[in-house]
């Protein structure tokens, strides 16, 4: 193992135990099931409070169920180490959990060694980072950052029609409690997050650490083609107004437009609803869900405009009607240059092979960046798999990432 600049090192064995303890809750043969605010996720948060108290952290839970554990020494603005422990349905065992477990290990090392701190360290597991339940992700950190309030939370509901506001009310959390979860920039000195990469780049490049310089944001677009449902046997090809063939042209166009864009944009048509979706009926209506992401706001905007334009052309050429709507439009986040350079220096001084990179996935850090200077450390994901039961990161890589987190925390707080 490369040595860390502070001379302190995390215990890989304890870190592995913490990851196991948290990730086994809700583990099934089809992956991890800790969807936000379900019994399994709440049990896991109960276990998390146990782990935090065990090492002497002061535990608190805010109005949206974010769990915090703070060191008792040091005063004023905190260095927060955060991530999440909720999962997508059938998720992996590392997504989020690695960051929270590493935070606990860092706090434990600091407490055990009585390291004097200028700034307290606060570990956090944010609620509902995954968007799989309420359609919106990073809910816990968005509330802390003041981007979501109790009123906007009332409007969110899951596919069973259960409103997030009702879920929180069952927690005994009213509007005041939710709104009081918002925190001030002056509460923070910095925010750090260790996360699995969830993509294949580090593995392909043979690097152990990714120092994230920017987090891409997505524009989510709904495109609906309204043609005419007809009998598949009696309607000649030239008289059809097939919504699915129109949609097919757009799917390919999204791929071409993104490839042609110089500013690194990725575009995905990830959902498609065909109506009536019967083999003997010409498709009457098709709705596409399109996700366009980039760290460059201008490129993202340009691609979005081109996709909408292309949809218009297809609709007029094929005589189908078109409805487009932007469901969500987030701004990319450029992470703090000082922290990026601090993380790079930690890697250099410990001779850990690293690279600067962007994050294609959203993380709690992008919300926390509204409040304080943020840094994100990536560790490699085997074959880039994530949101999948086969998600994997080697323990020695997690340990390297946790040591980097420890060193960065000490440089910021001690």
């Amino acid at each position, binding site marked *: 193992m490369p040595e860390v600049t502070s001379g302190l090192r995390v215990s890989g064995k304890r870190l592995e135990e913490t990851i196991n303890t948290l990730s086994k809750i809700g583990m099934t043969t089809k992956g991890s099931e800790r969807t936000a605010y379900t019994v399994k996720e*709440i*049990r896991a948060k109960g*276990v998390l*409070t146990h782990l935090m108290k*065990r090492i002497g952290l002061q535990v608190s839970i805010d109005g949206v*169920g974010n769990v915090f554990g703070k060191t008792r020494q040091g005063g004023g603005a905190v260095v927060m180490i955060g991530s999440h422990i909720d999962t997508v349905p059938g998720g992996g065992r590392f997504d989020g959990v690695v960051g929270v477990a590493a935070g606990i290990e860092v706090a434990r090392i600091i407490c055990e060694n009585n390291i004097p701190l200028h700034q307290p360290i606060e570990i956090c597991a944010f609620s509902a980072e995954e968007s799989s339940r309420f359609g919106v992700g990073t809910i816990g950190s968005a509330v802390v950052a003041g981007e979501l309030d109790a009123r906007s939370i009332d409007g969110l509901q899951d596919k069973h029609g259960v409103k997030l506001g009702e879920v929180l009310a069952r927690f*005994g959390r009213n509007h005041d409690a939710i709104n009081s979860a918002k925190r001030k920039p002056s509460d923070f000195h910095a925010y750090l997050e260790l996360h699995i990469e969830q993509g294949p780049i580090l593995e392909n490049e043979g690097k152990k650490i990714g120092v994230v310089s920017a987090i891409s944001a997505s524009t989510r677009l709904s495109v609906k083609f309204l043609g005419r449902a007809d009998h598949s046997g009696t309607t000649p090809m030239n008289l059809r107004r097939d919504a699915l063939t129109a949609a097919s042209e757009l799917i390919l166009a999204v791929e071409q437009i993104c490839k042609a864009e110089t500013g690194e944009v990725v575009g995905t048509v990830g959902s498609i609803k065909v109506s009536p979706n019967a083999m003997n009926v010409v498709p009457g209506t098709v709705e596409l869900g399109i996700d366009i992401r980039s760290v460059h706001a201008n490129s993202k905007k340009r691609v979005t405009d081109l996709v909408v334009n292309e949809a218009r052309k297809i609709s007029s050429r094929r005589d189908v009607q078109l409805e487009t709507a932007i469901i969500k439009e987030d701004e990319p986040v450029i992470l703090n240059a000082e922290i990026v350079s601090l993380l790079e220096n930690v890697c250099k001084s410990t001779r850990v092979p690293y690279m600067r990179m962007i994050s294609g996935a959203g993380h709690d850090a992008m919300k926390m960046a509204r409040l304080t200077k943020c840094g994100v450390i990536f560790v490699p994901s085997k074959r880039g798999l994530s949101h999948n039961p086969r998600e994997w990161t080697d323990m020695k890589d997690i340990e390297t990432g946790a040591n980097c987190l420890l060193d960065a925390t000490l440089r910021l707080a001690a």
Partner: protein
Amino acid sequence: MVKEKKILNSRQVDELINTLAKRILRKLTGEPSVALIGIKTHGAYLSRRLGDKLGKSLQVYHGTLDITLYRDDLNILQEELTIRESEINFDLNGKIVVLVDDVLFTGRTVRAAIDQLLDLGRPAVIYLTVLVDRGHRELPICPTFCGKKVKTERGERVEVKLREKDSVDGVYTIRQ
């Protein structure tokens, strides 16, 4: 018509707790420490009392469990799904745990408590102590230390009162 019958008075409850403490101590001869974990609410009071007696002979770690989220009849649409902050502020791994409850009935509460303990860590062993075993088990669970076995009807209730909460010690059967 509610029929309440006192089956153990305050002195008898105290004697039972003394006897349980002695038996636990005998079982744990040579062990340096024990983690007493009471199932809320009455098991928690009982556990404290046992701890006071055992504390003279060995190091006692105290903890309590709220098993709500681990119940097998949890109604997720009605229960308040609050994060139950753990009140076990020590490492459970490798510990000798004595789980404490007031009444053992179907065994389902104990099953829930064991599941919760195993989520929190990996104790070396878990023993079970109950003040009263009223029978009617629905799961293969057997107490390691039992204060008193009481024959009851399935529909009867057995209520343990402890002075910390009820201002009096006593065990009652209640028939409606």
